[in-house]
């Protein structure tokens, strides 16, 4: 096996609840690469991330993350789940949320140390939230909340960063900043970003994968054709003339 290979999926089939959503997916990613996975909603993007994290066991096929089973390699992964899933009124402040990212280095029955807390402050500064430690999580804007969750993923110093629709709640002008941050992080870790926003992803990633139950394309964003996209989305895609990138106008978003 290639030692720089971070993720390797071979003929992976997986169910979400009782629906078969991944059908024979092969995927390989090496360290320091930024992969964007695009595809329609319900196409299995989130399931793929959860398979890589070992949260969903594939019914067939093999998954290797950093050469190990996903359950064992999970401690090297940073995960930012789809944003809308938590209770905004939950009585918790930003520092407590980000500290969860240090859980692995502590484990059961051990308190977070001063070092953990200073690490949290450092990462919060890095994502541009230096003075937010004591704020209740729900009092932050959507984009700020998203950066808190990214900080939580980063504070564990992951070898692989998995992001599920991270830009969904970020204002357009903040997205540029967000991708610049990922650009910097790329030197230290492999990044997999899941999104239905084809154009934004294509501009920033090194590799793009089109997923709709099956993997329709995996390669450089430059090589991605409108036909390929149309097959992924199972519908004609309008390529906008003034852009050199494929852009899908979609009504269901």
């Amino acid at each position: 096996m290639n030692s720089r290979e971070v993720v390797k999926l071979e003929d992976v089939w997986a169910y979400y609840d009782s629906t078969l959503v991944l059908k024979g997916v092969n995927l390989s990613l090496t360290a320091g690469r930024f992969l964007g996975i695009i595809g329609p909603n319900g196409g299995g993007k989130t399931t793929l991330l959860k398979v890589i994290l070992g949260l969903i066991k594939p019914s067939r096929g093999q998954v290797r993350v950093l050469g190990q089973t996903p359950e064992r390699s999970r401690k090297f992964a940073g995960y930012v789940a789809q944003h809308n899933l938590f209770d905004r009124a939950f009585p918790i402040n930003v520092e407590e949320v980000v500290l969860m990212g240090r859980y692995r280095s502590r484990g059961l029955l051990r308190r977070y140390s001063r070092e953990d807390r200073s690490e949290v402050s450092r990462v919060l500064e890095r994502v541009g939230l230096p003075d937010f430690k004591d704020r209740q999580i729900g009092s932050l804007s959507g984009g700020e909340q998203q950066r808190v969750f990214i900080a939580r993923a980063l504070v564990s110093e992951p070898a692989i960063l998995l992001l599920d629709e991270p830009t969904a709640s970020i204002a357009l002008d903040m997205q540029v900043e967000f991708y610049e941050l990922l650009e910097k992080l790329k030197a230290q870790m492999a990044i997999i970003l899941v999104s239905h926003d084809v154009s934004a992803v294509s501009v920033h990633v090194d590799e793009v994968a089109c997923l709709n139950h099956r993997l329709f394309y995996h390669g450089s964003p430059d090589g991605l054709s409108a036909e390929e996209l149309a097959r992924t989305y199972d519908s004609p895609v309008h390529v906008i003339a003034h852009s050199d990138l494929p852009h899908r106008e979609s009504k269901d978003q």
Partner: protein
Amino acid sequence: MFEVFQYQFMQNALLAGLLAAIACGIVGVYVVAKRIVFISGGIAHASFGGVGLGYFLGMSPVLGATFFALASALGMGLVSRRTSLPEDTTIGILWALGMALGVIFIGLAPGYAPDLFSYLFGNILTVPTSDLVFMLVLDIIIIATVWLFYKEFLVISFDEEYGRVAGVPTEILYLVMLSLIALTVVVLIRVVGIILVIALLTIPAALARQFTHSLKKMMLLAAGIGALFTFGGLWLSFVLDLASGATIILVSATAFLAYFGLSRLWRRKQSRS
């Protein structure tokens, strides 16, 4: 008007109220924050089966209730995690099953069950010293467990999936948390009874939440508010000669509604000026 507190039974009642307030203050915060009020109601009602079993076997109904509360908590937790049955369905079934078992056991038990009513609606005035010791032990277990697993409980309350990714043994700790709810229910049975447990588990914590964003401070505050409610309700029930458990709940609910009514009025006034 406070000379009533000189009596032994009144002192026991105050102690029971304090112990109950501590338990429901700590555990109620998780119940409210993690939104598992319904599962707590299920555990409370299922424990009635244990009260019945206690009568039937001629042993302490509180011991039977402890056993049933723990068993139903673990049952609900395991079934909802390991099977595809929806959690609220499981809760509904165990809720009714426990009550039904209680009714059957009591029917089969020899003789008459005289203080059955006090298990359903509580009677803080008849708490014997032995039960106080039992409640104290349960309180210590609850405090020790929350102290040990505070950071894990915070993760699984806020974001259980992330907990799994971060390596927290989420399932076992969720079962531990449900067991704490079960123990709290047992502590509260003496004070307000099985049917009214939910109110003391939720109202103090829900009120405390209005004043702080810290889980720890919420616990302290909720315990204090709970103690205030039980003492106030107890005193009022004595003065007005009403059922103690129900009066404690009425005091709590009135305070809760008053707080929300007043804070709405206040906000409306603020926005107008």
